[in-house]
């Protein structure tokens, strides 16, 4: 036997491309040649593989060895091809039983001494293998729990090349990694935050609950130290927990970036990503030569928090407009297009003026001009994508000292789940999931107003100088508030509360 082929996979963005590692050994001048559109780290694999094979006690004969990674059109990157190359070589040499490698996906990086190191992107590769009909995956031991998340495929975690060879020869047995135990972690992680930690801020809590119920983006305005980020950090705790499929989808993104926890690989909670205002476009939406997912994709299914919104570079904020609208991001490169999911709730926080104390005139010394300039750093189109705007006031002493037990996240979450299920029922068969996603035509259908309500909106439209955009946003938020009251008609109190949450048009702000 002088030819063998082994299945492996390459990752492009979030997409998995199957790769076949072929080895041919023939007589001729002794060479070790690797082909197949390889990046330099894959070319270096030849040294790693030969040394590791040698150090595992196997001699490579002085023959002409050609290794091909097919298809040749896909660029191969990363170190995860080390193990398949080594096994393919050994299989061609007749060191292993080829039939055990049939319908088996192999990934792993080799250390010079023959140990197998962990690699990135295991979960998407394993899931793709399962889809393609593979029955078994040979993974680095450390990645085995992650691979086991994709149930219905045998996961074999190996620690060294020697162990893998023994297993494939049938000389040693390795128990498949057990899946299914990761379904939900009911014990909270240490350092878990909870809404009951927050003192005062009743109005903000209410606004956050409305936002979460309807999936609305949220802007918190308040002086420094009013607990804006503290509140934002707790938003994921009142979101309904992700379903198993959602968890897997989130985990896949983290897996590609090598961010999964080795012991608890499943992202069973909602992510919270707090982005610093010095962030670059590429880091935020994803980028790189071969684009990798950015912060907005890491926040997929959870919350993206932008603190000090006015300090972000304007161009960086503008790139958020498309993902906020479409809930995914398209990144185009000369060699291909990449789509990353980015369905998140945006929570942003900012000060009301440069010094942060407006409208407390005993402290704020900002001129109207300065305030205007400050607010101008956020463009109107960006503000238009935020449905709810609320002030986070400075805490008073009594509030800090207060020790009245507050509602826990779990209590609020149960309410949120109920409101969400109302929406799910209503939008069954539609392409939307929640009120925030309502389009103009859908607003007409689902946010119908009575006579009195119509009159109020007319009055508000003229006396509060509303724009068409704000008008629609108010209706969407009112829909959510009505849903929180059981999902009936939108009534006057719902509309009024929604009007109170509108993002103030900058023209009328700060005088």
């Amino acid at each position, binding site marked *: 036997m002088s030819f063998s082929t082994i299945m492996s996979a390459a990752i492009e963005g979030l997409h998995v491309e199957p790769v076949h590692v072929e080895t041919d050994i023939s007589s001729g001048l002794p060479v070790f040649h690797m082909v197949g559109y390889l990046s330099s780290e894959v070319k270096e694999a030849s040294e790693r593989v030969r040394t590791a094979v040698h150090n595992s006690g196997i001699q490579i004969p002085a023959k002409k060895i050609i290794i091909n990674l097919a298809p040749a059109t896909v660029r191969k990157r990363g170190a995860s091809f080390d193990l398949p190359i080594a096994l393919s070589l050994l299989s061609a040499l007749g060191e292993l039983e080829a039939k055990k490698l049939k319908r088996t996906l192999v990934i792993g990086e080799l250390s010079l001494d023959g140990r197998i190191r962990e690699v990135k992107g295991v979960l998407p590769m394993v899931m793709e293998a399962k889809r393609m009909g593979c029955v078994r995956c040979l993974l680095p031991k450390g990645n085995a729990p992650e691979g086991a998340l994709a149930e219905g495929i045998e996961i074999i975690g190996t620690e060294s090349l020697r162990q893998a060879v023994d297993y494939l020869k049938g000389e040693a047995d390795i128990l498949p990694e057990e899946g299914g135990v990761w379904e939900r972690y009911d014990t909270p992680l240490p350092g878990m935050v909870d809404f009951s930690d927050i003192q005062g801020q009743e109005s903000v809590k209410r606004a956050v609950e409305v936002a979460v119920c309807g999936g609305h983006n949220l802007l918190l305005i308040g002086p420094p130290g009013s607990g804006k980020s503290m509140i934002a950090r707790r938003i994921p705790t009142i979101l309904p927990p992700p379903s198993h499929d959602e968890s897997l989808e989130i985990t896949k993104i983290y897996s590609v970036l090598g961010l999964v926890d080795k012991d608890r690989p499943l992202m069973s909670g909602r992510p919270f990503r707090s982005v610093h205002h010095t962030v670059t476009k590429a880091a935020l939406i994803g980028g790189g030569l071969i684009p990798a997912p950015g912060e907005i994709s890491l926040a997929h299914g959870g919350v993206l928090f932008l603190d000090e919104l006015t300090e972000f570079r304007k161009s960086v904020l503008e790139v958020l407009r498309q993902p906020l609208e479409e809930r995914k991001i398209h990144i185009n490169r000369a060699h291909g297009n990449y789509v990353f999911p980015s369905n998140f709730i945006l929570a942003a926080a900012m000060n009301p003026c440069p010094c942060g104390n407006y409208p407390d005139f005993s402290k704020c010394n900002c001129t109207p001009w300065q305030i205007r300039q400050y607010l101008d750093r956020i463009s109107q189109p960006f503000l238009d994508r935020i449905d709810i705007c609320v002030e986070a006031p400075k805490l008073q002493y009594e509030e800090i000292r207060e020790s009245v037990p507050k509602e826990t996240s779990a209590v609020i979450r149960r309410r949120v789940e109920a409101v969400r299920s109302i929406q799910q029922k209503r939008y069954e068969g539609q392409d939307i999931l929640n009120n925030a996603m309502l389009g103009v035509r859908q607003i007409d259908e689902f946010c119908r107003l009575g006579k009195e309500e119509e009159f109020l909106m007319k009055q508000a439209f003229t*006396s509060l100088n509303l724009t068409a955009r704000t008008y629609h946003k108010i209706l969407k938020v009112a829909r959510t508030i009505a849903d929180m009251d059981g999902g009936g008609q939108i009534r006057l109190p719902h509309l*009024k509360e929604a009007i109170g949450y509108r993002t103030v048009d900058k023209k009328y702000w700060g005088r």
Partner: protein
Amino acid sequence: MMYEYWLASIYGVSAAKKRLLRERLKTAEAVYNIEEKELCSLGFLKEKEIQVILEAGKREVKGAYERMAEQGIAFVPYFSAEYPKKLKDIPGPPYALYVKGKLPEESVPCVAIVGARRCTPYGEEMALRYGERLSRAGVQVISGMARGIDGAGQRGALNGGGKTFGVLGCGVDICYPRENFGLYMDMMKEGGAISEQLPGAKPLPGYFPARNRIISGLSDAVLVMEAKERSGSLITADMALEQGRDVYALPGSATSPLSTGCHRLIQQGAGILISPEDLLDEMNIRVKGDLQIISKNEKMLETTENLVYSCLGFIPKGVDGLIKETGLSAREVLEQLVTLELQGVAKEISKNNYIRIL
């Protein structure tokens, strides 16, 4: 008239000396044609001023004068019938005024509303209110069209359907500050913009204290709505006193730094503003018929609305503060606030911060 314009446009000779020259030589044309020798013999001009006048004599002013006329800017020199009589009485009257729109009518009372540019919502609201009520009573409102109180007073006057005049610290063809462009345009319809600076003059800081004397000079009374301890509005008040005008100050909270200047004025003997009606009474202006507006707080408000409304004041209050004061829930408070806002008795001045409007 062109010679008057020529004389007025000379920089470097004071208005008083220009007037003296004009009086001695009877016409501005004579000043234009004067010989150096004669100028020297007049005796009150300095060497440098003589040079300035002679230099200016060589300048072409016809073009500039005609351009000004084309722009619809009226030129009102001291020695003309249109020149406001009130201004002739003040110390250091300007040699000429440039007017876009109209000058205030002489027979109608004029009141100046002045105050801080960076004012509180209280001051702004009060300026609006005084402007509106006074103009309803037929009073002409004069101010400096600046940010804050000035602009609010004039805006109020326009709301009241009356005339308002802005005395600018730059050329009348320039709108400064730019954000008051709407006001500038509206003001022009009924009232006008007035300046002693040539059209096209930039708003230089030096011009502003000087224009304050024109504001007070054109008025019968000066109302100071809000002023810090050291403030340009107090300069206007000083000038008003010097010119023999009445000064009134609006009292405010003892803790507000923006009311200290007003309180100081009251301490020094300025009149106190209790209500626009009271002021009109004191100025002997009879309010015609139904000008009295029904105070909005007499409006029927429902009990919860009233509860929230009663907690509002001129110091902005947030929703959380109101929750604590009223014991209502967040959604109820917000709902009531929006109700009040839609009724026009409350105003959101920053996100979720409301003040009351009477």
